[in-house]
């Protein structure tokens, strides 16, 4: 057993999108947090417009608040990005977006970046889309390896992707790619929806990141029905030493993001004990 530490908790800025990045970072300091999972989305980290100078500014803002970057997570679900797209121009642009995201991760000084598999059209068999996703992942991993960055592949909700939406499919992709750079990001919301468990994931594949979220719908801890105490116990049982990203992602929290984060942190502090 190894106790989960508050220093492993890394909130995300995704539900602070109506406020500037600095506002979010100040909130982390206010709540005595030591790590951040940086969501790469506008207006905080607009990936397509990012320059070396703009990324350095972001890094400085984070570093001067003594925050560690747990993971860089470019927005790829809401944005027009799909590495498994059947239209070559859409897929090529998506790959380029993620290759640039790797450069940003590198300049930020983090060694972990999140990635998702994309999707094929739902009225078609996923075979071809699966291949396109795998090949895109391989291209991205090749560059990640050069930069010394690990990738963490997140299974999605079934309504978001027909490729990877449970543990078995994640394992299949990890096995097929078989790269030391690639692990799995277990998000507790799609995990619970798929009927998988943390124990299954830890037993069967390499977990290199976790999104510890209440659900359904990525709500703040306390607003959903998922078993936080059980998750903490299981993480301690498997001696998980990585980061726990807090992805609070629901439009009801946009107006007052601090309130949602504070509530989630209170529940986690109580659960860790």
């Amino acid at each position, binding site marked *: 057993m190894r106790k989960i530490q508050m220093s492993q908790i890394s909130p995300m800025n995704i539900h602070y999108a109506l406020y500037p990045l600095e*506002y979010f970072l100040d909130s982390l300091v206010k709540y005595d947090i030591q790590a951040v999972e940086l969501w790469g*989305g506008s*207006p905080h980290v*607009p990936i*397509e*417009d990012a320059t070396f100078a703009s990324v350095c500014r972001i890094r400085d803002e984070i570093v001067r608040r003594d925050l560690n970057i747990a993971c860089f997570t470019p927005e790829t679900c809401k944005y*027009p990005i799909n590495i498994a797209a059947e239209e070559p121009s859409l897929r090529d642009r998506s790959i380029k977006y993620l290759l640039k995201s790797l450069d940003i991760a590198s300049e930020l000084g983090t060694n972990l970046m999140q990635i998702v598999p994309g999707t094929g059209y*739902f009225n078609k068999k996923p075979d071809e889309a699966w291949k396109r996703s795998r090949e895109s992942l391989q291209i991205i991993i090749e560059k990640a390896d050069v930069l010394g960055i690990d990738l963490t592949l997140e299974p999605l909700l079934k309504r978001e992707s027909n490729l990877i939406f449970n543990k078995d499919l994640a394992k299949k992709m990890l096995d097929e790619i078989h790269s030391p750079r690639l692990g799995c990001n277990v998000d507790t919301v799609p995990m619970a929806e798929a009927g998988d468990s943390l124990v299954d994931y830890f037993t069967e594949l390499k977990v290199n990141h976790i999104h510890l979220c209440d659900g359904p719908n990525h709500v703040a801890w306390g607003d959903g029905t998922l078993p936080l105490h059980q998750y903490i116990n299981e993480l301690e049982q498997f001696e998980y030493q990585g980061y726990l990203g807090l992805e609070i992602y629901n439009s009801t929290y946009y107006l007052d993001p601090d309130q949602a984060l504070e509530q989630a942190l209170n529940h986690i502090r109580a659960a860790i004990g």
Partner: protein
Amino acid sequence: MFGGERLKNVNLAGMNLHYLNYSLEYFLDSMVKYEMPNIELWGGFPHLYSEDISLSDAARIRKEIESRCLNLVCYTPEQLMYVNNIAAKEPEIQKRSMDYYLKNIEITAELGTNLMLMTSGWGYYHEPIVEAWSRSREALAILAHKAEKSGVTLLLEPLQPFESNLITNVQTLKRMLQEINMDSLKGMMDIVAMAVAGDTVKDYFEALGAGLLHIHVIDGTPSGHLAVGDGNLPIDQYLKEIDDFQYHGYLSMELAASNYYPEPDKAFLRSLENIRKMLY
């Protein structure tokens, strides 16, 4: 059922947003299958993302629509999911957003419709809105000039409070329309935004009159972008009120809840059947 004689099924239009896990052709075929003659085309990935397409691609999409004898009533480039914000404080975001909408006005003309939906953008929520309002107004004026030259009218749609702090109700909509005062910029009504703001159909028609050119009919609780019947808004009552104001425009069903994504036809058909019972 109500007694109006003007508002009919022929005013309804289907939208493709919740078909985003299917191809554009699949959506168009569904509209034909369900005998829906009108569409409002959502310009979003992967159906029509303006950054990925040329004007000749837009012409090809127009042929796909016309070859199915569908009537395009409005073009709606995605406004909220992506990085665009015409009122952004950061010059690079603002420039990207203006380029996006300027190109989309050209796409509108190429698609063969003269209406394009537009929203205000937003300012940071902890700052006074006066500067963001000015940026939005200047941006909208530039876009309205471009629209005028392209034979396009922009339809300004109020947003919900978690989407924007600028135009979120009938008063702010009217104020912006008056400040810009151009024929190429008109107002529209979204039932959910109206209900969330506490406005009424009467408020909208009294404020905009004949300048109310387009309506989104969707259900909500009151928020959401739900199929008619999936929420708790009094849609039949709204339709009767809209009818009483002798509205002749279209009623688009802008379904956008992500739980409709796996089986978009089902949600569309449910909405259509429910609203058809209220019209005739």
